């Protein structure tokens, strides 16, 4: 193995790495979107009065928060197809696993956000005679979303980083491409450093957006 560090060495491999980054982003955005929608629903169930819905959602959330993402991924990739007796490809199993994980994270953010909306908002809704649909859509959801936004953004960064695990089931994401190229060329220093830099280039601005949102948007609305 050549121990000299020559950054220009990775240039020919950049297109392959960028394809990997594209896959990483695609998977992350897909799973974050799915997780946000289901996360809001699960968050409502966790705050609701229906005991069965509460119990199911609580078990779900605690399970996915309390086990390693890698085992969730492997379980869905290896065990679920056997149990259901169907073929599940790597991309679909990775999407299912990460979406469920994001759902669990997002539901916690929504749950505490919903809890923090004071009862005086409900007084206002009732005194104005707003129908339930209007109050959910125009009063509760926007406030819950804004209050949950900092947590949701940092959950999204977590998911983006954790998504590197999907290389273990053969998804050609950024991590996967990095591993292949680094072992094929025996140049791990250049290649893996580049991969880390590419993750950072996406992740760091995202964490900055979190604090920007906290400072600007949320303060103006005093949420």
């Amino acid at each position, binding site marked *: 193995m050549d121990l000299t560090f020559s950054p220009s060495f990775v240039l020919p491999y950049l297109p392959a790495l960028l394809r990997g980054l594209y896959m990483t982003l695609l998977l992350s955005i897909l799973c974050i979107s799915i997780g946000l929608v289901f996360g809001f629903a699960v968050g409502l169930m966790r705050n609701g009065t229906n005991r069965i819905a509460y119990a199911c959602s609580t078990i779900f959330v605690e399970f996915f928060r309390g086990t390693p993402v890698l085992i969730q991924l492997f379980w869905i990739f290896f065990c679920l197809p056997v149990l259901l007796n169907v073929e599940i490809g790597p991309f679909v199993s990775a999407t299912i696993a990460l979406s469920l994980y994001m759902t669990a994270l997002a539901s916690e953010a929504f749950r505490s956000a919903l809890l923090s909306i*004071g009862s*005086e908002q409900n007084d206002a809704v009732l005194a*104005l*005679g*707003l*129908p339930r649909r*209007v109050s959910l859509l125009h009063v509760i959801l926007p406030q819950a979303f804004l209050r949950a936004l900092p947590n949701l953004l940092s959950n999204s960064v977590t998911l983006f980083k954790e998504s590197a695990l999907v290389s273990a089931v053969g998804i050609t994401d950024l991590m996967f491409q990095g591993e292949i190229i680094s072992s094929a060329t025996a140049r791990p220093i250049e290649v893996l450093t580049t991969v880390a830099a590419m993750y950072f280039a996406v992740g760091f601005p995202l964490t900055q957006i979190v604090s920007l949102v906290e400072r600007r948007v949320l303060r*103006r*609305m*005093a949420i």
Partner: protein
Amino acid sequence: MVSGSRQIPAAPGPASSVADAGGAGSAGQSAEGEDRLPATQPFVEIRNLRKSYARGAIPVLKGVGDTMSKTDRLVILGPSGGGKSTLLRCVMGLETIDSGAITLDGRNYIECLSNGRTFVDRTVQRQVGMVFQHYTLFPHLTVLGNLILAPVKRNGEKKGAAIARAEALLSRFGLISKLKSYPSQLSGGQKQRVAIARALMLEPKLMLFDEVTSALDPELIAEVESMISELAEGGMPMMIVTHDMGFAKNIATKVLFCADGVVMESGDPETFFAAPKIKRTRDFLASILRGTKV
């Protein structure tokens, strides 16, 4: 009294269940038409209202009854915990009740049915507006957004028309410069004035004010009270809970003293403040004058 337009079971007979509250002597009148009422017909009538929290464990209103006419501004006074807020919340239709009924303009719109459930006629309830002690503006909407939400989303009013009405209302009350501000950018007094304007957007026939100046710094109280006075001059019937005796004396056409969940005394403000009939009222007024909380 039977309200002509409702299909709900009739309320108990005239005045039979009215907890003695020294109310107007018109309770025996029966409404024939639903809109044209005899002049003696009370505008609002509360009959034998009982309300408890925690499934009866905390009785709060223990048979409240009173009336107000269309020209009245009813000021409700009383010690803390006496049930004033609960009474207004019941009139607004925010609470379930354990017995009794409330009538607006001759229509029974809140009533405890024989099966114990609370009936609320939403079309009548919508004619009542309420402003609370705590700030209830929607923090994620601008002043304009707060004003037009209910007219547009509830009543289906055209957005342009609602905006025009909101602008007119805000100009009238000196708030037009705050049109695009968020609630967090307003002072407490401005927040309460916007909350009043938001309620006015729905063109209520009756306004309820529950200690709307209690959370305010002293220098901000006047602007809110003068807005309420302006509405009063415009002929808006209202029920006001306040601890501000000066304001109460100025605005009241009728005073109701509410303590321990019952109406202890009610009548015209001159008599009430100058010569209260019962000792409890005298003690209350004296303690207010001394500046101590009861």
